[in-house]
């Protein structure tokens, strides 16, 4: 695994990403983030809080779909409560993540773990959109007594696992073999 990421990072170093990272390093926003000691930690706090909001909401919807919690409410009610939080959380995750990226462009852009994280994020967003649409449509069609099928339940847990994998990558960006 270490070899894979080392190789990936070596390849990234040969691409336009290196110049892009150098360019980002010259921006005013980079200066702002680098010259203020608390800027990066505060962006990370915002990142963690937003992940907590999004992951917590994702978990609660997953538990409801699997009949493990929230049984007093229908799936559309639970979905209505938590789905907006997932997307608002994502907005704050992206904003805080962008601030961290611009603060340390080379450390992130020339880093295999960072790009695997971005790929996982994209996959997670696509699966989440499909899952949410399907859950709402099926629950709407079947009425309040709707019980999610095996595929929906599996997908709901897959999304939780993908969030965890993204967090694993997030932590390991700092330890990537570069």
């Amino acid at each position, binding site marked *: 695994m270490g070899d894979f990421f080392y190789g990936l990072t070596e390849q990234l170093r040969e691409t336009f990403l290196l110049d892009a990272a150098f360019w980002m390093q010259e921006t005013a926003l980079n200066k702002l983030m680098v010259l203020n000691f608390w800027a990066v930690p505060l962006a990370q706090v915002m990142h963690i809080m937003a992940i907590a909001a999004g992951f917590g909401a994702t*978990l*609660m919807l997953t538990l409801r779909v699997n009949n493990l919690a929230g049984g007093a409410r229908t799936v559309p009610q639970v979905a209505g409560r938590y789905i907006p939080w997932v997307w608002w959380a994502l907005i704050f995750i992206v904003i805080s993540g962008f601030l961290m990226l611009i603060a340390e462009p080379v450390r992130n852009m020339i880093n295999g773990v960072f790009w695997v994280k971005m790929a996982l994020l994209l996959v997670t967003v696509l699966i989440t959109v499909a899952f949410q649409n399907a859950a709402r449509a099926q629950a709407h069609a079947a009425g309040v007594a709707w019980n999610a099928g095996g595929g929906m339940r599996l997908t709901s847990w897959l999304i939780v696992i993908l969030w965890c994998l993204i967090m694993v990558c997030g932590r390991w960006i700092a330890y990537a073999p570069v």
Partner: protein
Amino acid sequence: MASYYPEPTNIWESLEYSSLGTSIAESLWAFPTLETIHVIALVTVFGTIMIMDLRLLGLASNEWAVTQMSRDTLPWTWGAFVLAAITGTLLFVSKASTYMVNPYFLWKMSLMALAGLNMLYFHFKTYQTVSEWDAKPVLPTGAKVAATLSLVLWIGVIFCGRAIGFTLGIYY
């Protein structure tokens, strides 16, 4: 096997130079792996606490009974908290004397203790009358104060947790 570590002069160094502490510190993967589990656990703790606190504040899920919300979220809050405490303890052991002189670590522990006291007061005092306000959208002041304190304290805990990582070389 010869030990490369000096004789411990206090309890924190004893922890740090223990076989557990040095194993974690010397391993290439143990510390980051524990950190990763710590992160996944703590976002689950804060995420579920936030859901409950927003209900108590009357800002989200107002039409849901407080006792029901509590049953849905609390097992996950506690399960994840135990996981965060275990991984946090292991991280601590590997650098115990460094953490013990770090003000942000000491603040983090203090804020968590305050969050615990806030929870105890809420549970044993405010929550005793829950049957009177369980399904109401607007809750008594005591519940709102508890929720506000909980959010502020836990955000403080997260901030201190991050601050520790940025100040490790400064205080020792």
